């Protein structure tokens, strides 16, 4: 199981690609589908590779990203 889970709210996403641009792991990709607002939302291509740096969430202007971490106690 991946250590971090990055969740995209694709209805909030405006497809600005900032998360993609700032992900140090290059694991964010833009969808070819179009969301209800008419944008191509971002999503994660390789959850395992995520280092949980939060860069994506910090730069997202539209609050479309949440990040979860595996509970160590689990």
């Amino acid at each position: 199981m991946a250590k971090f889970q990055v969740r995209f709210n694709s209805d909030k996403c405006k497809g600005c690609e900032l998360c993609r641009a700032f992900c140090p792991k290059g694991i964010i990709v833009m969808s070819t589908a179009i969301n209800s607002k008419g944008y191509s939302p971002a999503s994660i291509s390789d959850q395992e590779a995520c280092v949980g740096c939060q860069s994506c969430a910090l730069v997202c202007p539209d609050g479309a990203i949440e990040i979860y971490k595996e509970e160590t106690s689990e």
Partner: protein
Amino acid sequence: MKPVFTYTKGMTAVDTSYCPGCTHGIAHRLIAETLEEMGKLGDAIGVAPIGCAVQAHKFMNVEMCESAHGRAPAVASGIKRVHPDKLVFTYQGDGDLASIGMGEIVHAAARGEKICTFFINNCIYGMTSGQMAPTTLIGQKTTTSQEGRTREQAGMPIKMSELLSNLDCAVYIERVALNSPANIRAAKKAVRRAFEVQEKKLGFAFVELLSTCPTNWGVTPQDAMKWLGDKMIPYYPLGVFRNPEEVRA
């Protein structure tokens, strides 16, 4: 799974009206998160004057007031007199604050109003579609400086943080940038410090947030971030210009 980064209660569920990649959304979130973390969402009152963020009240989960273009510091001064223990803040664009609202911001700072001002400097008039602002950089093309701004035609861009640093009662002044995760983290600290200065009633607190306007700059959001770093920061250096002892620690 344990959330490490999640939606703040400081933002409403309403989607912002900002263009894709516009950093207004980031600035909103930083303020919202900070107030949430301080437990002050219900004890804050914001003022957003005309500019792209005039409808901030739809997005930030605090009580807010619109204001006439440029007059937010006066409006906030009035609010603060009625509610001296609430956190009162203004959220102003560069056209608004540095152009038409110059008188109001200088005087609010000079009086040492116990309010915070978040100054979203994107070097342009966003809402009205891209005219030159007093902060527009030399050489920058806008709809009213189509060949690029020149010193001869419009003088040099105004550095508001430096200007206000001359005023004794403007006790906390910092310039931050919203162009990278690291800078955004630093920006959030500045927002926090500004509210703390107000909580302690030390005086006027001012945070200049260098921002982007991809739409009117005519570039992608990503290139806008780059332009901010390459062009804006060299002219508008980041840093703390004034910092009262009490919050320096």
